[in-house]
């Protein structure tokens, strides 16, 4: 892969993959490390994809898997700087959004990726199930759980749900 092509892909997918990483690892430094690992994998494994969409899905899956492994891995570093309940949010946000981000970070790991992929990236349950190797009903259950924990208002967001195939 040429440097130019690699950089194009990096800029195309970095925010998407960084958001997923951050949601799991809950801090900037580890999320950046993970992002670097994911792009290294892309660079050195150089898999061939039918389309950009397939490539995007592969990257999402790799990121989710690596983030999950990181969080409960034997390699996870001693978290001696983590004060209970305190997560440093480096972006400038109003208090409502900060609160929401904290709630999202507190979601069970199982719900995080499906919530993000569905509500932000707009993937359907079926697409997510293929991407993450889950059954469609498992994806729906995780969305349901995530919705109830975040108190997402189904009525106000009804149109959104319908168009996304729930």
């Amino acid at each position, binding site marked *: 892969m040429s440097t130019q092509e690699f950089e194009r892909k990096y800029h195309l997918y970095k925010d998407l993959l960084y958001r997923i990483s951050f949601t799991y690892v809950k801090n900037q430094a580890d999320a950046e490390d993970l992002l670097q690992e994911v792009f290294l994998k892309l660079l050195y*494994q150089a898999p061939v994809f039918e389309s950009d969409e397939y490539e995007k899905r592969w990257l999402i899956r790799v990121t989710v898997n690596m983030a999950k492994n990181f969080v409960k891995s*034997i390699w996870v*570093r001693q978290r001696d700087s983590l004060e209970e309940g305190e997560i440093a949010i480096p972006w400038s946000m109003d208090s409502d*959004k900060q609160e929401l981000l904290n709630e999202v970070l507190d979601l069970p790991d199982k719900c995080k990726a499906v919530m993000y992929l569905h509500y*932000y990236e707009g993937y359907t349950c079926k697409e997510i199930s293929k991407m993450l190797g889950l059954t469609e009903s498992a994806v729906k259950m995780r969305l349901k759980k995530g919705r109830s924990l975040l108190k*997402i208002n189904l009525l106000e*967001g009804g149109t959104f749900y319908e168009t996304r195939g729930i």
Partner: protein
Amino acid sequence: MKPEEFRQMYDLVTLDDEADCRILSGIGKMKTGGKNMRNRRYQKKYVKAAVAAAVAILAVGSGGYAASLVWNANVAERFGVEDQKEIMQELSDKGFSKKLAGENTAGSRGDSTGDKSDVLSVTDKGITVTLRQTLADENCGYIYYEVEYGEEYAPVMEGTDERSDYGIAWPEAKLTTDRVLNYSGGIMKVINDHKVGYEYFFSPADHEKTFQDNVMNLKIKSFYMETKKAGTEERIAEGDWSLSWKLSNGNQKRVYQIDKTVKIDGMDIHFEKFEVSPLSCRVVYLAVEDKKFMELSGKMEEPGLGMLRCGKKTFQGNGGGGYMSPTSGKNGKTYIVEQKVFDKILDVGTLTGFYFGNKLISLENIEYTVED
């Protein structure tokens, strides 16, 4: 909350330009042959369960000049004690740690002042396997060994497109003793193009067994390299690389008799005792293993025994812990033993509690005994 707010919130989670530079520059360095590669290949065997363990207290005592000679530098760095000579000395004195080969000593990287008589090494097909250090308490352990690949083998470094068609090298290794072991491990450090450090964490599958005076065996029958193409591996050598040694293990542990019932998610869980050493901890509790309990376990990101509380800080175990349940208990409940092996050395004196799921079980007002 509306879904739109969810999207607006995530819109703000972005990488800044400085982070972009750091990441791209890091990738660039690795692409051009950087040497600070992390563990790419990681083998897991019998992740299932494990043991009951326990062990000792780390009472930081007086240091000594010899401390820098009793730990391998890579192991000291990996366990976060490279600058703490007293701790290294203490663990060696109490039998928890045994350095087996002289070179690359903690605190004097690269010298060869260690005791050569303890070197355990074997060479076959141009590949040399050397056991460098072990750490163990009664019921769990760790080994670090290095493999030196002869010049006839392709460089093992990752990200060296120009120099090699291969990625990282890994051995098909088996760790055994006279009892069934659970173990997991992989590459700890790439030392140079032809030398890699590997590690394994292990514990007996039966929580009533201990490691006292056990003879351990490390047997490698073949070595592989990963080709650049995704998912393909190539066997590069077959032979016999076998090492046996008597495991040195520390026995000292701090034992808290908790004997307290705690309600967690509507379930009564009776905690009997908590045992801890610098290397691992173990909790014994009684619970009804019904559907509700299994759901709770599922939510906990196995095993239930999570981080330790050290003052206001948390201490993360490495996840190599285990879960043993089939012992009959009382009142229809089952005795369950869970263990956590640490990937950093714990200063037991700072311990104030442990997390079981999301529940903090405080140890602050609970008396403990020190057992040898």
